[in-house]
Every structure is written in structure tokens, then in C-alpha cells.
């Protein structure tokens, strides 16, 4: 009898924590929605979504999200282009090529990489990477999208490596053996058989990496220059959605137009990351089947 009660109690606790987590997500969404919808009572939705100027403290204020959105897109695309080949390559090395002692060393190093605080990376970006990039590429300033992309690529690497590696390892051994049986070399088996079979897992890894990159704040705020221009090149200073919220949140009086505008930016960001994570989830689900 006593056992039954404690079983029931534990079950209830677990159930409650599960439901609470879901409830929190919903509440956060509702909270964002409520405050951002208040903006559209005083500011047109079209002007927000398609406006080309972000001038929050001018008279009259303009809250055009296009430069911020494009800033985020540029930095993210740049980071992904840099980190996907590196990430998938290292995952292939760790999963298939590296001898077992090296495998362990590399795996723990990747974990250490994940634990570097972003503000430290940002600092390195300001004092070292930025100035060097400026000299190497002969730029106007080292505070540009590329500096941000490089650092963000560095931050997304651990996610991409560990998830891709899982996907590669979980490809059944028989696939590879069959390839070897048909006379394939090690590289051919890896490139033509193992990699395609693990593709949904790798796509999921990339998606989660994108999610990590687009939501990152500190690094981009420190190194990308934060100029709210519509970027035409990744070598320009640009301003992202996250840096805008972080940089301006402190000064807004709660209930002001600017305050609501930042919540609306937050909502846009939330929707983007939600969609990315959802598609990553769908890919992972496919990979498991």
C-alpha cells in the first residue's frame, strides 16, 4: 500500500514538472505576444515589418525591422557557411577515421570548446580577431559581420560536431561492410554510403547550430559594430535582432512605444528560432526511423 502511494506521488511529480515546462513555453509566448501586439496599436505592422530605418529615439521614432533582420541573416549565413564544412568534417574524422585514443581526446576538447563563455570570445574578437581581419582584408573597420560570423561559427561547432558524430556512429555497420564487400575504398564508403545515410541527423545538427547562432547575443553585440544599415556585404558593420534587444532594453521605460517595439523584435526572433528548432526536430525524427 505504502509503495503504491509513493509510486503515485513520484509519478505525479514527474508529470507536474513535464506540464510546467510546456506551460512556461506557452506563457513566454503569450507574454511576448501581448506586449508586442501593444506596439501595433500605436505603430503600423507594415511599417514595422517592411520599414528600412531603425531609429528608436528620434522624433518621430521609426521601428523598421528590415536592417536588423538582414543583419541577423547575414551573420548567421556567414557563420553556417564557415562552420558546417568544419563541423561535419571533424565529426567524420572523430566517428570514422580517428584512432580510439584520439577520439576521446577530441571529444573532450569539443566539450571544452562549448564551455567557453561568449563574452570571452567577444573580447578576443574586439582586441585580436577584429584588428587582424581589418589588416588582412584591408577593411574600413574590423567591427563587421565577418568577425561576428567567425566567432559564432566557433560557438556553433560543438553542437554541430557532437550531433553529426552521433548521427554518423548510428549508421548500421552492415552498410559499410556491404560497401567494402563491393570493393569500395574507405573514403568511398564514408562519402557515398555513411554520410548520405546519416544526412537527416546532420541536417538536424546544422539546424540546431543555426538556432544557436541566431540567438547568440553577447558576441555579436561586441564585435559587429551594431550599425543599423541595410547590409550589402558581410564585410560591413551590421546590427542583429539580438544585439538590438540587449543594447536598448535597459533604457526603455516599461510601457513605452520603444519597449513594445523591442518585444516585437523578440517575438520575431522567437518565431524564427521556433521554426528552425521545429525543422531540426522533424529531421532528427526522420533520422531515428
Amino acid at each position: 500500500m505504502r509503495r503504491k502511494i509513493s509510486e503515485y506521488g513520484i509519478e505525479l511529480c514527474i508529470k507536474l514538472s513535464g506540464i510546467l515546462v510546456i506551460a512556461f513555453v506557452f506563457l513566454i509566448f503569450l507574454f511576448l505576444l501581448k506586449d508586442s501586439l501593444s506596439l501595433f496599436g500605436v505603430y503600423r505592422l507594415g511599417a514595422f515589418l517592411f520599414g528600412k530605418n531603425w531609429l528608436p529615439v528620434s522624433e518621430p521614432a521609426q521601428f523598421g525591422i528590415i536592417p536588423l533582420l538582414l543583419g541577423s541573416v547575414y551573420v548567421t549565413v556567414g557563420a553556417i557557411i564557415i562552420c558546417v564544412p568544419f563541423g561535419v568534417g571533424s565529426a567524420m574524422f572523430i566517428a570514422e577515421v580517428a584512432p580510439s585514443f584520439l577520439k576521446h581526446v577530441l571529444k573532450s576538447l569539443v566539450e571544452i570548446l562549448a564551455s567557453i563563455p561568449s563574452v570571452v570570445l567577444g573580447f578576443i574578437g574586439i582586441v585580436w580577431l577584429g584588428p587582424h581581419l581589418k589588416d588582412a582584408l584591408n577593411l574600413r573597420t574590423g567591427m563587421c559581420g565577418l568577425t561576428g560570423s567567425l566567432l559564432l561559427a566557433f560557438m556553433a561547432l560543438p553542437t554541430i560536431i557532437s550531433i553529426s558524430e552521433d548521427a554518423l556512429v548510428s549508421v548500421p555497420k552492415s552498410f559499410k561492410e556491404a560497401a567494402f564487400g563491393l570493393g569500395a575504398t574507405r573514403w568511398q564508403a564514408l562519402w557515398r554510403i555513411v554520410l548520405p545515410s546519416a544526412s537527416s541527423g546532420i541536417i538536424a545538427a546544422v539546424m540546431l547550430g543555426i538556432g544557436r547562432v541566431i540567438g547568440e547575443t553577447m558576441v555579436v553585440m561586441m564585435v559587429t559594430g551594431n550599425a543599423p544599415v541595410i547590409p550589402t556585404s558581410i564585410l560591413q558593420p551590421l546590427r542583429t535582432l539580438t544585439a538590438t534587444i540587449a543594447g536598448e532594453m535597459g533604457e526603455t521605460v516599461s510601457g513605452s512605444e520603444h519597449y513594445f517595439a523591442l518585444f516585437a523584435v523578440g517575438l520575431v526572433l522567437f518565431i524564427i528560432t521556433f521554426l528552425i528548432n521545429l525543422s531540426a526536430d522533424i529531421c532528427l525524427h526522420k533520422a531515428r526511423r
Partner: protein
Amino acid sequence: MKWTSILIALVGLFITGCDEKADSNEPSGFIQIKGSDTLVNAEQMVSEEFMNDYPHIFVGVTGGGSGVGVASLINKTCDVAAASREIKPKEIELANKRGVLPKEFVVAYDGVAVIVNNNNPVSRLTIEDLHKIFTGQATNWKEFGGKDLSIVTLSREVSSGTYAYFKEKVIQLGKKDSTEEFTAETLLLSSSQSIVEEVMNNDSAIGYLGMGYVSDRTKSLMLGKDEQFYLPDVNNVLGGTYPLSRSLYFYTNGQPEGIVKLFIEYALSPKGQQQFRETGFVPVGGKVAKKD
């Protein structure tokens, strides 16, 4: 069982802290100062000295920008707001609506220094020149006798009081109804320190900041007009000859009382003013501006 009790004790300690009982005769408590990034180093010095004299009072100093300070005064999340600009009428109105009555104290004077890289041959500019540079009408240093390099303009974030001051004096040239803006190419950096870093590393950069951040790692430009150019130093700011001279403020909610009053008085005392002088600002000499 033994571990459980230790764990509970630790958690208990974590929540309550090891509170040392203060002497009831001595003033004690916590003061939160938020705001101006220009003032943050000076505030830190003042509060450290203050905490030496009153060991039971803790002072927390946070930067972020004058806008942050004023907003938290209105949101009632700080005791003292530091600002490098005057509070705006709109903000006073908002504050009054929430039952907050900002009271102003001038704690120091400051000149907004315009800094360039030490390798930049340009050493003097007029306010007109600055206006052209920061609005994007002039884009190359050779127009001002410098090298053939395109100008990189640096600014603080919009929450900065120095940003607001610079925008009013240089971008709008003092005209309240002007709709001119910083060129969109301007880099908005989150602290005065990052402006110093970028100017040090970039030959073509130009930025502005409070006198407290001036050092020999960057070059301050002489500003003025008609052959009369002045460096941002104590004499030129006090004499008002430096064109970008301004006051720095503390704001409290209503007439300060208790430990907050103690702190404000300390900041305005010769001992407190000494700290402002040491961090590069111009002391006020005990004068208190009256304005409610």
C-alpha cells in the same frame, strides 16, 4: 541522512547568507546606482571610498547608459540615477505619472572629447566639420588635411547620455526641430571603453566620449572655430571655451533621505569631488544645482 542535513544547511545558508549583524547605531543598507557609462568609473571610485567610511552600507554601481539610469529611476529599480545629460521633459512627465519626482544634482563637469588614432595627422576640427563627418556628408580624412582614408564614425548606443548630447550639439547643431541623424554607417558601440579600443586599432576611426576616458593611447582633437581651438581639459571646460562642455548629474526620487542623502552629500563633498577629479572630470566645488 548525514548528507541530507548538510545539504539542507547549505541551501539554507545560500538563501539567507551569512548576515553579519550590523551595529544598530551605524547607518547600514544598500544603495543601487545605475546609469551613465561616462560616469561609471568615477562612481565606482566614490562608492569605494564611501564604503570605506561607512562599512555597513553597500553601494552597487551599474553602467549601461544615462537612458538606463533614468528608466530605472522611473521604474523604481535604482536609488540614484547617474546621467551625462539632463532628464528630458517627456521623462519627467512619465516619472510624475508613476509617482517619481526626479531631483537633480550636478556632480561634475565634463567635456565631450572627440578622439582619433594617434597616427592621424588631423589635430583640430570645427563643430561644422564634426557635423559633416558624423552625418556622412564628409567621408574622407583628406578633406580635413589627413590621409586618404575613408572615415569610420563611432558612436555610443542610443541609451547613452553622451549620444543624446552629441546628437543635439553636433548632429542637430543645437536646433531642436532638426531631423538630421547620424549616418547609418556609424558603428554603435556598447561602451566608452570599446570606442577607445576601436580608435586605438583603427587609423581612420573617430569617436567621442567623456573626459574620463581620455588617455595617451588615443588623440583628443582640439575643437573650436576661427583659429581658436581648445583641448578638452579642466581649464577650458571650466571657462566654457571648449565647445562641448556639459554637466554630469545624479538624480534621486524626491529629496534624498537616509543613506542616499549621505551618499549624495559625500559625492559633493571635497573628498568625493577629489575622486571625480582623479578619474578625469572637472569637480563642481560643492555647488548644488537647484531644480525640481
